[in-house]
Every structure is written in structure tokens, then in C-alpha cells.
């Protein structure tokens, strides 16, 4: 399995992890991660700005001269201002970026949204079928909500939100201490709880709409 990364207008192929492979084979639902997790990106962002990104303990020790082969940005330069130099930097620093991304994005590791038309098209051509990644915009979602049990729902929401805060804290700690298996478990728990939160908000759980 190979991943396609558009760099310099050239499609660069590279090895794919299992999850990406499943996604690429059209298992959009499985790998979509669309349920999302609720973590505390504010906290993560605050942590990122307090200790500069590079001091992030989850970041594997970068070789002294680690640099992007394309634009020449060194990982140390990235650490000082948090900005990458080019698309290839994501590949060059992939090991170091993992923890940083998880922190900033509630433990997420993979994209789950729109796919550029030309990427989707080339994938369709390769696979000979419709790619299911495009997010459908069902405008049909009812805009008005039943307000009757609102107080009770707010109470439940507050309770769940409080549990989420604790869980997210543990998730952050797990990531920080590089206990990735534990982090994955916690992430699932967070996700379940978030589903619960949605259920309380909507009354029923609505499935992700995928075209």
C-alpha cells in the first residue's frame, strides 16, 4: 500500500500505515475518525506556547541536524517559531510531529475531511469506483430543537463535560509519557463520552453523514 502526497506537483508515493490503507481502500467510515474527540485544545495550545513546541516531551529526540531535504528547514528552526517550511517538512519530521499534532488536535493523527477533487479523481481512476470521503452537506438537519427537557439535558451535559475534562487530562498525560496504547484506549473512551454528549444534546445519536 502506498500513500500519495502531492509535492512539487509530483505525486510522491510512500508506504502507508494500516489505517491509511483501509481508508484508501474506501473504508471511509472505518478510518474517518469523523466522530472526533473532545479534548482541550485550549489547554494543548497553552501548553504549546508555554513550553515551546520543541520541548514537548513526546517529541522523539531529533537528530542534531534533522532537516527537511526539500526546503532545508531544520527541526530546531521549526521549534523556535512553530512554522513548517514546506509540504515535505511533514514527511521529514513525521516522527517528531506526531505528538505535537496529537496535542493540538485532541489526539487525532489522521485527516478526516474533504479530499481535493484531483486527488479523489485519481484515486477513483485507480480503484475504479466512487471515493467515499467527500463530506456531504445535508442541509436537511432540523434547525430547531425541542427545548422542553433543556434543564435536565444541561445538567447531564455539565456532568459529562466534567468527566471529559478528567479523561482528556489523562489522555494528555498518557501522550506526554509516551504511553501510546493507553492513550489510544483513553481516546476511545473520550470518543464514547463525546457520543454520549451528542446523544444528550440531540436526544438521539445521529450517524455521520457520508456521501
Amino acid at each position, binding site marked *: 500500500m502506498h500513500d500519495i502526497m502531492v509535492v512539487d506537483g509530483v505525486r510522491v508515493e510512500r508506504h502507508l500505515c494500516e489505517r491509511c490503507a483501509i481508508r484508501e481502500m474506501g473504508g471511509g467510515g472505518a478510518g474517518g475518525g469523523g466522530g472526533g474527540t473532545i479534548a482541550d485544545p*485550549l489547554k494543548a495550545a497553552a501548553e504549546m506556547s508555554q513550553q515551546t513546541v520543541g520541548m514537548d516531551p513526546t517529541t522523539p529526540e531529533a537528530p542534531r541536524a534533522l532537516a527537511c531535504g526539500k526546503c532545508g528547514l531544520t527541526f530546531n528552526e521549526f521549534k523556535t517559531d512553530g512554522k513548517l517550511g514546506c509540504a515535505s517538512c511533514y514527511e521529514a519530521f513525521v516522527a517528531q510531529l506526531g505528538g505535537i*499534532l496529537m496535542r493540538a488536535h485532541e489526539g487525532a493523527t489522521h485527516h478526516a475531511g*474533504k479530499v481535493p477533487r484531483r486527488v479523489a479523481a485519481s484515486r477513483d481512476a485507480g480503484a475504479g469506483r466512487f471515493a467515499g470521503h467527500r463530506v456531504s452537506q445535508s442541509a436537511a438537519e432540523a434547525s430547531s430543537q425541542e427545548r422542553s427537557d433543556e434543564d435536565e439535558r444541561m445538567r447531564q451535559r455539565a456532568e459529562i463535560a466534567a468527566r471529559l475534562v478528567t479523561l482528556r487530562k489523562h489522555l494528555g498525560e498518557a501522550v506526554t509519557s509516551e504511553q501510546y496504547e493507553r492513550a489510544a484506549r483513553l481516546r476511545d473512551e473520550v470518543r464514547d463520552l463525546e457520543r454520549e454528549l451528542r446523544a444528550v444534546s440531540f436526544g438521539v445519536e445521529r450517524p455521520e453523514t457520508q456521501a
Partner: protein
Amino acid sequence: MSDAGAPIQHSAVQAGAPWLRGDGPDSDVVISSRVRLARNLAGFAFLQRAKPVERQGVFAACRDHLTSVGLAKQVIWAEVHRLPQIDRTLLMERHLLSKEHSKGGAASGVDWPRGLCVSAPDERLSIMVNEEDHLRVQVLRSGLALTDAWQQIDAVDDLIEAGLEYAYSARFGYLTACPTNVGCALRMSVMLHLPGLRMTGELDRVRRATKELGLAVRGYYGENSDASGDFFQISNQVTLGKSEETIRRELEKQILPQVLEYERASRRLLLEKRRRATEDDIFRALGLLRSARLLAPEEAMAQLSLVRMGVLMGVVQGLTEQAVTQLFLLVQPSHLQRYLGKEMDQQRRREARADLVRERLGGI
């Protein structure tokens, strides 16, 4: 193409910004909705690392494509790095330009070509070229209209991509200069007017609840502004691992209905239980605006906020909500100067602001 031009005409300044028209859904509480995408072109280093020739290349490629692909009935292209300062500030006040994009690198002596593409005359769509990312695409709508805004920006994004290849990876999504934006690289935000919650002392609770849901809370002026007045911007933080639809739904369905309901309940409560005191606050604000001879922007905003609530509550008669909301923009420094057609120092602006507000609100 060589003329940087004046992207916003005098008539547009007088008319106020379309997103401040107050005619969108839930506009009693939601002033505006905003959706922003970050995109970079494949084959070019991100802006900060790009050489001058690359920056020029991105600029030219984007200019040629954006002005010809039919993003809107009419689009205006402005060369931001060549605009007079007052026009840049004007565009910032209209939320069409970021502070960073306005400044560029002029201070350090190394400026670079920056573009702005705006749909005219509605100004709903704006695209910054050579900002932190090569493209920052934004759609602004009046009221709560995130779905409409998303649909427009999604279509615009497809049109842009038809001529410009994006830097994208299957794993990380749309690649951005800052890893905090990577993924769908989407920021959705709503600007809320919450005077009722402030007056009933419930604002902190709402702010906390919003943050608990992983959303960012900011002030009227965005990024680095303090959410201390009656205006709040709420936006998503996470862009990786969530679909655009999930982000929209979390914002629109999980938090906004509650905030809207709380604000409305607060306004009702103020009328039912503290009518005299509330009317006193509102009419003092109106009296101040109708009488002041000197007005600073912050003071004007604080008082206008109360008057807007008064109009919406039916407490203040004879003024339209639109007339009041328009003033939010006209009291800003560059709008004031453009409106009156002359440059003024701070002291003169305070005088002119007071005169304008008195004139608009039937002052004495």
C-alpha cells in the same frame, strides 16, 4: 492590474458591511458567521520559507486564477502591499484582512507581494494571498449561517483547486505552515452579541462551558483581542481528525442553541425583573451617545451595544437595529476617516466620532 486601486468604494463605506446588516438568522444574538480555509500551493515552499521569486510566483499564479475563474459575479483584486495604510486598516475593520497580512514585512524592510480578492459588492468572499499560508479563503455571512457559508466556501475551494494544485497528503490532509491548522484547515466562527448575559452575570459560565467543549473564545477584533465587552467570537480549534461537517455541527448544534437561549432568557429576565434598572442603563447609553462631544471607539462600542439591545427589546423606539449596528463599523478609525473623506489625528477623530453618532442617532 498595476493599479493597487481603492478596493472599497465610498458608497460601500456608507452602506456598512453586508455582514453587519443584521438580516441573517438569529441576528438578535448572532452578528455574523465566518468560515475560513487555509490552503497552500504544491510546488512552492510555505510563505515564511519561500524565496522572493517563489512569493512572486505564488502571487502571480493566484492573481491570474482567482480573477478569472468566476468565484463571484464580480471580484476586486487589491495589491495589499501597495495600498495606503488607511485602506488596509479599513479592510481590517471590515474583517477582510488580517493584521499580519496588512503589515507584511514592511517594518523589517523586506516586504513581499500580497493580494486580496474580494467579491463585490457583497464582500461575502475574500481571499488573502501570501498570508501565513499561500491562500486564506474566507466567507462571511450575516447572522447564524454556517451551513450556507460552508457551502459557498466548499464550492469556491473546488474552483480554486481547478486551476491551482494544493499541497495535500492523505494522512495529514491540507498541509499548512502551522501544524495547528493542518487537516481540513478549517476555522468556523460566529460573532455573538451577549449584553444580556453580561448584565445578568452569566457570561463567565457560558465562557467556561464553551471552553469545556474545546472551542476558542475571542473578542470583537479576533485573534489577539480580549473577550471582555459584549461581543464574543466562538470558533473551533481542532482541524485534524474531524470532518468539516462534524466541526460545523459541534459549533452549531452543541453550543450555540444553548448560548442563544441563555442570552434571550437573560434579556427577558432583565425586562421582567429589572425593567426600570435595565431601561435606565439603556437610556443612559443612548443619552450619552446623543450628547457626547468626544467619543473613543471603545466607549462608543460599549454604549452602542446597550442601545442595540434596547432596540431589539422594543425599549427604544424610533431607531432601527440596522442603524445602530452599522455604527459599530463607522465608529472605527479608518471607516470614520473614509466616511468623512479626510485623515484625522486621534483627537479629531474623537470629535468627529461624537458628531457622527449624534447625527445618526438624532442627538442634541
